[in-house]
């Protein structure tokens, strides 16, 4: 067992050199790598802790919200029920109002229909009355009636002086048209009364068997009628005016 001190010195140098080499190629790279990885792990742990803390905060928030929702669920349900009832009431009142409006419209329509029907009935009655009157007057009319009508018309000529003169214009002859020939005294009366109103105008008498009993006086471009038909037309106009409808246009009525 011997010690070679030169070898001892060389081994010490070798050992120191090995320390430097391993520090350079082993310890520092490995420790730096471990430190970097630990730093990365620590950073990730920090991130994970932050995320976990955030998640816990979110969980707490959600739990609080769930508790709040649970506590207010009954209130919300009651509120929703009240809202539903209000909506139902509104819909019902709306439907009721619409129903009442439709009923009012139907009632108005019925009233209108009834009024129209009543008016129609009145019109038909008036027409029937007129037709019956017209038939009766035609059937019952005779010379006496026509004579009386002519005399009545002659008596009214004085009141119509201005209108007659305006209607006559430059005409110098008038025509009196009847269904039956007039007696002489009636013709004289009519000629006299017309002469009093229209001086210088001659009167000519004509007969038309198809004419309604009465007198049609043609003067210039105008024609005045005092016949049964004209009287009935006046009656029809009066009935139509009473029924609230326009009168039918008929012959010119001087009555």
């Amino acid at each position, binding site marked *: 067992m*011997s010690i070679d001190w030169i070898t*001892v010195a060389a*081994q010490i140098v070798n*050992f120191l050199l*090995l320390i430097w*080499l391993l520090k350079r190629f082993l*310890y520092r790279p490995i*420790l730096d790598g471990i430190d970097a990885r630990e730093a990365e792990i620590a950073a990730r742990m920090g991130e994970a802790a932050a995320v976990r803390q955030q998640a816990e905060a979110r969980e707490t928030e959600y739990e609080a919200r769930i508790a709040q929702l649970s506590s207010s669920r009954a209130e919300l349900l009651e509120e929703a029920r009240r809202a539903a009832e209000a909506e139902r009431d509104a819909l019902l009142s709306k439907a009721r109002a619409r129903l009442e409006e439709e009923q009012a419209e139907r009632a108005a329509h019925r009233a209108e229909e009834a009024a129209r029907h009543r008016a129609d009935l009145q019109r038909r009655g008036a027409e029937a009355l007129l037709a019956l009157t017209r038939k009766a007057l035609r059937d019952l009319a005779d010379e006496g009636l026509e004579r009386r009508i002519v005399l009545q018309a002659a008596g009214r000529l004085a009141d119509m002086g201005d209108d007659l003169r305006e209607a006559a214009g430059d005409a110098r002859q008038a025509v009196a048209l009847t269904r039956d020939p007039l007696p002489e005294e009636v013709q004289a009366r009519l000629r006299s009364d017309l002469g009093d109103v229209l001086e210088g105008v001659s009167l000519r008498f004509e007969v038309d068997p198809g004419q309604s009993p009465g007198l049609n006086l043609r003067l210039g471009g105008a024609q005045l009628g005092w016949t049964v038909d004209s009287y009935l037309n006046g009656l029809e106009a009066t009935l139509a005016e009473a029924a609230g409808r326009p009168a039918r246009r008929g012959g010119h009525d001087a009555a």
Partner: protein
Amino acid sequence: MELTPDTNIVFAPWGFGINATIVNTWIIMAVLTGTAALVTRNLRPDVPPNRWRTTLEVIVGGIVGQIAEITERRDPRILYFSGTLFLFIVTANLLTVVPGFDTPTASLSTTVALALSVLIAVPLFGIGSRGLGGYLRTYLEPSVIMLPFNIISEVSRGISLAIRLYGNIMSGAVIAAILLGVAPFFFPVVMDMLGLLTGVIQAYIFAILATVYISSATAATPKPPKEAP
């Protein structure tokens, strides 16, 4: 029987003999440094660790953990010193299985050199940590009377370290050689396996003891070392 590789001159440039202890030490240094440089040449955070890198990280991490457990702090200088001691000794002891390889730790010169390194490093670490006055005062504790005993204790530490390592490794080699003559097939294999285990344990003990000495020189109340076999 040749007991030490110091006498085995490998080559002699300019008449200066380089023995097998030094050459084999260089080989171990080349193996350790080459492996470390090869594995750590592409050590970037974005590169995933491979098997070799993981192995080195486990070894270095284990050494760091052991040192931190003893010194209760993380001092890279202790890692450089004690870690290199452990890696050198364990590599040298494991290479005894290579036929024809004379391990440097079987040389008393190597073990004495390592023990001297520890003896020199302990006061240097102590002075670096406490200052010269603070370190020298540790020799006067608990009283001035203890000064010679403390000095003897320091020296005996180095001698025991050197003899322990040398004796264990050398005895293993001698026993293996003897058994090789008695029972050439079975016992040498068993003894070699046992020698590997003993070599690893001795490396661990040597490094741990060095760490404990350094820790006692740098800290006031070092933790007791783990039980040594």
